[in-house]
């Protein structure tokens, strides 16, 4: 079972890699829409990448309204 810290790091690394942001430039409290510069369609892409990476299903309604990595990680952690 991953710890919150491990999950957080994996989420930040995955987001940085796929949305072409410098590794290490993202922090847990960042607004990922602003920091990654993504729109609603790209948010779905992020959701798919997270689901594929962690091997989970993360229903859209559980992340609706979520915009910071820390909350996103807590939603993922509850499904691991």
């Amino acid at each position: 079972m991953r710890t919150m810290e491990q999950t957080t790091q994996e989420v930040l690394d995955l987001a940085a890699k796929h949305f072409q942001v410098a590794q290490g430039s993202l922090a847990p409290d960042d607004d990922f829409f602003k920091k990654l510069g993504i729109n609603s369609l790209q948010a779905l892409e992020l959701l798919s990448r997270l689901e594929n990476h962690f091997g989970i299903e993360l229903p859209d309604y559980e992340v609706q309204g979520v915009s910071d990595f820390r909350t996103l990680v807590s939603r993922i952690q509850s499904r691991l």
Partner: protein
Amino acid sequence: MKSFTGETLRWNWNDGVVELTLDREPANEIGTAMLAELEKFVAGFDALAPETSVCIISSARKHGFSAGADLRETYEMIAFLSGAERLAGVRQFLERIHAVFNAIDAAPFVTIAAVHGICFGGGLELALVCDIIVADKMARFAFPELRLGLIPGFGGIPRLNRDLGNAFVRDLLFTGRSVNATRAQAVGLVSQLAAEGEALNVARSNAGQIKKFDPYTRAAAKKFLKPIPHEELRQEINLFCELFTRPAVMAALKKFVESTDAMPYLP
């Protein structure tokens, strides 16, 4: 017509395979222009049939196969009409789209949807008329219509019910959630999974195999295996039109087209 390039899509025939490529910004929303070009496509089926084994439907748009019905166009077209005029317009649109989707569903060759990215609402309904769905691992499927006070109107419930059974329809419809390609394959919606960006290549590989079978037997098997649920499709049109007359639908459409929410397909 073996090849065609329109405003919203194009097709090209080569060696027994016709590839239909949806290509309308931003995400292949299905509106009147795409419908007219789809009508043109299916009108050519009889001429294509004798020398066609497979039709592959895919998308050239980065974000996915199709985001579904063009709700922005729908809203703009009906916002200033009377209730009766709205209903007549919607019913006419549905009758036309059902005629096209029924034609693809019963096409005298094998149809494959090569799906990537979003495949929502009417886009999922288009994929569902195909015999085989190949999806890349980033594909997502949803029926978000309930958030508009509607049900899917392009044949989605009867066809998903025909192919997979009612339980998965209820899951998609009553939660409005989108499911990923892995889940879609697990429930039987997706036949084959492809690596990211490889759905069309996998569909072409399928086509190469399908072409080897006797066309008469293939067509007979398809007709036997895949009856069109005409009665349920008629009921769907009637229920959609009944729901469409409710004021809540116009309010929800307005909210959707004006939304800046990251997940406008959820209530």
